[in-house]
């Protein structure tokens, strides 16, 4: 874990960072002395969500539901909550953010924790040999998010046979919201939680607001081409097809699946960033924007969500009050 502090507006801003859930965790709080407790609060949330919603843990609640597809399964209420968030995202996006795309992700090759995929891909040949060289025809049940059945009273779930749930599009943002709110609730200070580039805030911000650099890859660091903005509240998320990519039979794959084709999105946008009332909404909008392709502009405008869309060629579109990038940033953004 790394930890730094800075004074902002009379209070001390502390930043903690570590790795969890296969991605980076960054926590900022406006009271330095609460750092240790803030970390504990976040770790508790992350641990709970991992046990409930991980697709890569055999002992998770989600894995149990996926294994028991077609049958009623009693699950932890936390998974029920995560499922409701995922289904709401699906409804709000008209099905563009669909939690029933787990099998499509597996077919695309995202069948294990991302770190393991990256490790295998770093050894040329291994990953390719694992897949059939000839074209493969696989029949799968096409079932949408409407087929997920939830019993709130008895905390039970059923998904149709052949369906695999994947909550990757919403769970991370949701737990960021939960963690930020938990810090603010328990410690009383302003808090920002960033999970793999999905940013949630709660409580009063530091003077000047929370400073966020928006770029293609959250691991690239603040010097990567992009734009730096400040937010005072809510959430900000970025989705990109330029990261978390792998090769399958010589074809570039990534983790954002188009429910219509059940294949990785091949659209106009490389990266979408959206600010919203919370991180979950922001992340839903970014994923849906990538899936919606050129129709995303009208959709985001209609919702009034500030957004920054970057085309594959590098052209940047700012919508809904997103600040215009300085010229030098715009140039830098085009170099990617």
């Amino acid at each position: 874990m790394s930890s730094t502090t800075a004074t902002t507006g009379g209070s001390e801003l502390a930043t903690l960072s570590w790795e969890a859930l296969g991605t980076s965790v960054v926590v900022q709080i406006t009271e330095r002395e609460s750092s240790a407790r803030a970390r504990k609060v976040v770790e508790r949330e992350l641990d709970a969500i991992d046990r409930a919603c991980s697709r890569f843990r055999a002992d998770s609640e989600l894995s149990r539901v996926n294994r028991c597809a077609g049958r009623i399964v009693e699950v932890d209420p936390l998974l029920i909550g995560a499922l409701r968030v995922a289904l709401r995202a699906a409804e709000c996006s008209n099905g563009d953010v669909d939690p029933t795309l787990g099998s499509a992700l597996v077919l695309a090759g995202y069948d294990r924790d991302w770190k393991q995929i990256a490790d295998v891909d770093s050894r040329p040949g291994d990953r390719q040999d694992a897949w059939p060289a000839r074209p493969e025809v696989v029949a799968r049940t096409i079932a949408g998010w409407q087929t997920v059945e939830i019993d709130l009273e008895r905390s039970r779930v059923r998904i149709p046979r052949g369906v695999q749930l994947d909550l990757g599009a919403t769970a991370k943002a949701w737990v960021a919201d939960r963690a930020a709110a938990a810090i603010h609730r328990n410690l009383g200070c302003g808090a920002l939680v960033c999970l793999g580039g999905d940013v949630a805030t709660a409580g009063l911000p530091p003077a000047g607001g929370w400073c966020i650099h928006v770029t293609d890859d959250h691991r690239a660091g603040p010097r990567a081409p992009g734009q730096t903005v400040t937010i005072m509240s809510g959430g900000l998320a970025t989705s990109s097809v330029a990261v978390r990519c792998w090769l399958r039979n010589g074809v570039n794959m990534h983790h954002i699946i188009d429910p219509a084709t059940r294949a990785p999105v091949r659209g106009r946008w490389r990266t979408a960033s959206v600010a919203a009332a919370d991180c979950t909404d922001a992340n839903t909008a970014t994923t849906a924007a990538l899936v919606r392709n050129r129709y995303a502009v009208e959709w985001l405008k209609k919702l009034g969500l500030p957004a920054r869309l970057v085309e594959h060629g590098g052209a940047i579109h700012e919508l809904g009050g997103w600040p215009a990038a300085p010229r030098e940033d715009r140039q830098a953004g085009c170099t990617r």
Partner: protein
Amino acid sequence: MRLPTHPYSSQARDAAMRRLRRANRWTVALSAALTGLLTAVTGNASIGKTHKTASGLGAASRRNAPPIHHSMLHQADRYPSHPLLAPQQAPQPARSNSPEAEPSQPSSAASEATLSPTREAPPEAAAPSRQSSLTPKPTHVSAPAPEAPALPKSAPTPSASRLKRHLIVSGGS
């Protein structure tokens, strides 16, 4: 004295027609009532409608399964969904001394054609002004510099180098 009616007389035919009409009316009324009843029963008994717009996709899988009740689902606080919500205030630009504006950016590969994208919305002026009274006014994060205006607060402001370490990166993951 009443004459006996012939089995094929007009009176017998009219009586039969009346009976037939009555039977028809009862049949129509009963079928309408039955349709309504069955609709109500299946509507309440069918399972797994996690949303109002649940399609028939799940019907096949439900056929042989015990019912799941979802009566509470629609009473949930944020469910069924309200649309995605905009923030109280749109993001604000950071000052020019933020890290990304430092001359370390590689930008030579940019062509003029890609530098002039369609502008979908005017910057900042179009930002929604839904800021709450509790939310502080947006300010730029900057180090005190001779040419830069001071922050509205009198409290000490963070230096750019210190803030650089606290810059959060939002990107794809």
